[in-house]
């Protein structure tokens, strides 16, 4: 009996090696878009909650001085980021980090550059309560929103009673953000079988992306990220994820979350510190392999592309742009 079990186990092992080797070869279908937006069972997507969340997202009264909303930095005009090297209000910080987009955040497995939030609901309150951002606190915010009559029907519709709580604010903000999904891009049409949807240069770029440049080791799936954390060897003192997890995990020092490559802003800025403004510079950084240090990601393996290959790779990245989302700003409730 024991013998049979170990046999089966051994056989399974052999089989799985082959299966996973096949799996590591990327094909177009690995980039297929999902059919529906995921949401946690305790915070399902509803029209009413989306409406409330959108209103909150655009309302500057969520900040202490009533001068900054979530949309100030996650702006529709900048692909739900801000187009700035350093976020508004963080000019005085020693290690500011670029504003990430909130597009496709329904699928995120870890949030913030250092992964310190693990759900959109948990993340939603962070900018509101961060001193150099919206600089408020949830207790006073709940009170302030309670005094704005126009919010009562919105909360009532979303939760079946008009009570305002921190949790309900966070749930609604998370729900609205889940609806910010990239438009179908020319790459998506190519994935679906339209051979002429992207140029032959972009198609060659796709091969380089998955092959020689190994971008897909981390920029994986239809979102072009697997939400993994890596030190990519940038000359930045920021310890990133290394600051929020045990210090003995060397590989996480200077590590930041892999950002999506969909809907990239034309001139960046790129990288967690906004230190690069064009894609060629970014690609050359990966070719060079970054600063050699103990924490450097094992996926940072130097390689060399020709001028034409770089052009192809950039042509491919441009096919991931689905254009700006068609979302009308809400009418803010009256006091």
């Amino acid at each position, binding site marked *: 009996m024991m013998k049979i079990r170990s046999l089966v*186990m051994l056989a399974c092992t052999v089989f*799985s090696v082959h299966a996973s080797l096949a*799996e590591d070869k990327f094909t177009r279908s690995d980039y297929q878009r999902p059919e529906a937006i995921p949401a946690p069972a305790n915070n399902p997507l509803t029209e009413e909650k989306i409406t409330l969340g959108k209103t909150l997202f655009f309302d500057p009264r969520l900040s202490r001085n009533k001068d900054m909303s979530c949309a100030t930095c996650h702006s529709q005009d900048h692909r739900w980021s801000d187009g700035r090297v350093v976020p508004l209000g963080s000019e005085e910080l020693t290690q500011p980090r670029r504003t990430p987009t909130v597009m496709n955040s329904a699928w995120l497995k870890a949030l913030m550059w250092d992964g310190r939030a693990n759900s959109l609901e948990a993340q939603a309150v962070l900018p509101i309560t961060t001193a150099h951002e919206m600089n408020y606190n949830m207790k006073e915010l709940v009170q302030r929103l309670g005094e704005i009559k126009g919010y009562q029907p919105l909360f009532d519709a979303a939760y079946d009673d008009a009570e305002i709580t921190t949790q309900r604010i966070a749930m609604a903000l998370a729900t609205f953000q889940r609806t910010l999904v990239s438009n179908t891009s020319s790459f998506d049409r190519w994935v679906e079988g339209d051979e002429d949807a992207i140029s032959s240069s972009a198609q060659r770029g796709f091969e380089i992306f998955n092959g020689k440049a190994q971008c897909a*080791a981390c920029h994986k799936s239809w979102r072009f990220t697997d939400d993994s954390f890596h030190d990519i060897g940038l000359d930045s003192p920021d310890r990133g994820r290394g600051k929020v997890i045990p210090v003995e995990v060397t*590989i996480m020092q200077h590590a930041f979350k892999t950002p999506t490559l969909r809907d990239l802003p034309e001139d960046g800025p790129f990288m967690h510190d906004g230190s690069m403004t064009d894609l060629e510079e970014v690609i050359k950084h990966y070719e060079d392999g970054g600063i050699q240090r103990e924490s450097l990601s094992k*996926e940072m393996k130097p390689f060399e592309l020709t001028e034409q290959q770089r052009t192809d790779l950039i042509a491919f990245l441009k096919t991931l742009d689905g254009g700006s989302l068609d979302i009308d700003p809400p009418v803010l409730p009256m006091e």
Partner: protein
Amino acid sequence: MNRELKRWLSGMMLIITALISTSGSAEQLTESEPVIHQMSLTHHDFEEWTFTPRANDTLAITNKSDIAHSIYITYPDGTVVNLDVQLPGETFTWTIPAAGNYMLQCWIHPIIREEMTVSP
């Protein structure tokens, strides 16, 4: 090489492996012998296991993906044990100290997150 050919080759490998192992001497596991369970790690998860892990068993986990992982285990009492970095192709081991629920995760890839219930 197409996918079907690969499937067929895997199938052949299965048969060959089976033949090789049956020709070896039959070993019987006794109570005192250490139990080693083979497990594997892909790009984004642990492959499903069918064995029942028990206290004092050892897990031999092979990284079958082409990327590095950094597995850590959260013990039932909250202690976190880091297993360092696992390069592609490497096999690393961990011996289960006691019964209870353990969480197996990766520092690099938060998507890798598997709970393991260990029997006494």
